[in-house]
């Protein structure tokens, strides 16, 4: 009896061995790294609406669906050309390849591009998405869905709006980086030195803003021959771009939104006091709302600390009276910037400042009444800006 059981055991072991061989040997999802076409950047532009659906016979056009169309440009890494950082530099040949197609659906676009690339596009290392101005003005919800739905795309991908064509931005030859997408993505990381572009907005933030239907600002990117510049912001009402904020207006927006991360502020002191530059080290903004006679009044308190970065006229910076005066002027300048930004937001009828949300938090009942007309109420609300600026250090010169 024991032997019979043993033989049964042998059969079982055999069956198990076969089963394991089948299961562990094959892998349906094998996708070797060298077979992946790493996409580093994506540019989306508006294209002519598609009217004919047949085969076009041209490289960048193919069978497709009628309707409004996008030109999708992918920046693919060219393996072997990039040259490891330690190696003698990938001087020879291009490191990346921008390939583009016109499709109504971005998913189809990425699929169609797979007919022209050796390696299937792989989005997990995507660093930056650049939206063309025309697409932005038409609304970005349609475009963003593909990126939000794909589980491979990271939420930390940066989003910029290009003045003009997005693919031109992606097409620049960056000096410092082999890939323009990587170069572009790192630009936004210099927030501590510069405050003149819209604060960080990544795919996650944009997905959230679109879902919540709140207004937002995305950095504007302006392109040159071999460089690009982040300057100002594209203002979105919901998912639709309605206009641009200039660089200083964007600085103002940062003040109000408590997104001041650093950078500088230049003030021309009156009465021939000369120019001073204020190096912002710390800033905190608190916004409060109260109802006065049934109308909301917002109060923005900005408290900023920093150092004297530059003072062109020889004034004794250790004189408390002088320092006081300079602080005053800095505060006024900041107040001015913040007010300009608010005025601009009100002009665009876009609540970039989260005032509506603040009202909802503080006065939920009132908010329920006005939320549908907020777009009409917001442009006329009273916003008070109070600034306290402190110069903590003056540098090495008196």
């Amino acid at each position, binding site marked *: *009896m*024991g032997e019979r*059981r*043993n033989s049964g055991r042998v059969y079982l072991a055999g069956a198990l061995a076969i089963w394991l061989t089948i*299961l562990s040997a094959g*892998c*349906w*999802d094998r996708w070797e790294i060298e077979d992946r076409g790493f996409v580093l950047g994506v540019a989306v532009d508006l294209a002519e609406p598609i009217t004919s659906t047949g085969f076009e016979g041209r490289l960048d056009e193919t069978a497709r669906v009628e309707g409004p169309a996008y030109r999708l440009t992918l920046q693919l890494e060219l393996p072997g050309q990039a040259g490891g950082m330690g190696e003698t530099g990938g001087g020879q040949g291009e490191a990346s390849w921008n390939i583009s197609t016109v499709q109504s659906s971005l998913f189809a676009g990425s699929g169609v591009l797979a007919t022209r690339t050796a390696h299937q596009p792989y989005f*997990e290392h995507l660093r930056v998405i650049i939206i063309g101005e025309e697409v932005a003005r038409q609304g970005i919800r349609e475009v963003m869905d593909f990126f939000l739905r794909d*589980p491979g795309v*990271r*939420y*930390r991908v940066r989003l910029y709006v290009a003045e003009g064509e997005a693919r031109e931005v992606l097409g620049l030859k960056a000096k410092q980086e082999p890939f323009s997408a990587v170069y572009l993505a790192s630009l936004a990381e210099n927030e501590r030195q510069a405050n003149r572009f819209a604060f960080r907005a*990544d795919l*996650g933030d944009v*997905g*959230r803003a679109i*879902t*919540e*239907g709140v207004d937002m600002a995305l950095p504007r990117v302006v392109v040159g021959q071999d460089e690009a510049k982040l300057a100002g912001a594209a203002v979105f009402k919901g998912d639709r771009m309605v206009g641009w904020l200039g660089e200083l207006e964007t600085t103002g927006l940062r003040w109000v939104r408590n997104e001041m991360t650093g950078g500088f502020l230049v003030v021309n002191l009156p009465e021939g006091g000369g120019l001073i530059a204020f190096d912002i080290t710390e800033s905190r903004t608190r916004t409060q709302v109260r109802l006065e006679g049934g109308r909301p009044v917002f109060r923005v308190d900005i408290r900023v600390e920093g150092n004297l970065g530059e003072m062109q006229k020889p004034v004794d910076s250790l004189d408390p009276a002088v320092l006081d005066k300079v602080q005053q002027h800095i505060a006024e300048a900041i107040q001015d910037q913040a007010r300009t930004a608010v005025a601009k937001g009100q002009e665009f009828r876009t609540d970039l400042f989260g005032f509506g949300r603040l009202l*909802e*938090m*503080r006065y*939920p*009942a009132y*908010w*329920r009444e006005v939320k549908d007309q907020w777009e009409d109420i917001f442009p006329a609300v009273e916003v008070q800006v109070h600034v306290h600026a402190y110069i903590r250090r003056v540098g090495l010169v008196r």
Partner: protein
Amino acid sequence: MKDRITSLQLAVVITSASIGVVYISIPRIIGEVAGRDGWLTILGTGGMVLGLTWVLVQLCLRFPRQTATQFIPLVAGRWAGGLLVWGFVLYFILASAYIIRSFSDAMKLFLLPYTPLEVVVIVQVLTGAYLVGHGVNVLARSMQVFFPLILLPMGIILLLAVVDFRPSELLPVLADGVAPVVRAVPQAFWALLGFEVLLFLVAYLHYPRRDALRSALVGAAIPVVLYLVIFVITIGALGPALSKQQILPVIDLARSIDIPGTFVERLEVFLLALWVVTAFSSATVYHYLAALAASQLLALKEHRPLVYLLPPLIYLAAMRPSNITVEMAMGKVISWLGMGLVIGTALLLPMAIITGKKGTAEPDGGQGGPGGSNGQQGKGVESTAQGAGGRQGRAADLGGQARQEKGEGLQGGGESNGLIDQAGAGRVWEKGGMQDGRKKE
């Protein structure tokens, strides 16, 4: 001796059964009804669940060494009780299937796009069957080993997500009144289901009267706390609108983590990898309970044959939904079933108190197993004793391989084991079972 679990293991098994797959989507499940006030729902429902846990433990303690399969018919009568227990069996099978299916779908989406769903499901069901075949002891110990793997990555991700957490997202509180909070209670209850496994497991505790209540409450409270933290942090980091919109909001929470200046990214992969463990744990517990309850109902000597008969059923149930919406509807039906069963069973406590129905065995110490030495389970006692004896006889035949001494059978350790148990004072590893078997042979 075999077939005993420690108080810690009971708590761990309850938690594992409960968190299963839902914790990944808890902000959506509750947020879509209660909005940003969902944490109040979780808190309130958590209180209810702990209350029900207390009731169910009291019920179990009235019938020492008996599982729900055995005592429910005693209280509710043969027909109604039988129906209730069969309901539990059905519920356990469906719950196991649902967990495996919804988890496999996510796996397919994130990690295994080209692997057939069938394969993902079969591998899990069969692995689960293998584990379950070794009985409650091995199952409980596995859960104990897995447990840190469940909480640790979740804890790390929540900790990292605190960077993005804005408490103001939770304001205003109760802006829409209490109605949405109350309407979300069923959702929260479904998410917290899992504590009902104690009905079948208290009987296996070493010292039920001492440990059962504490362990069960701890086991039921961990998910409440976990869900609360997950909900609050996800809402605070992603906002209520996105939390409602995303199918797996906690994955999105992990997806959005970015520690400035480091390479810490794509943490959702860790979460997914360890989600394997939680989903597997939960599905396995239900698989085991289905086999246990059914085998006791059918007065089988041991649960193993059923363990290997269930996988086809679980597989079929798991493959039944044609898409994610059907799958979610299935989840809803299962949850209603589970809710009905739990509340129905809880109502048996007052019934038992009124009619004075009670088990007779000594509650604590090493005496007998479920269906053991109390007189009311005449038939069961016979069969379990034989079952244990017969199997251990085989063990002796095969030269007493150590593996078999642990006793795969759940029901093992019946009356006959009592002899040895008295000597061994209910310690876990007793070789006694083998001698016992030899004697029978």
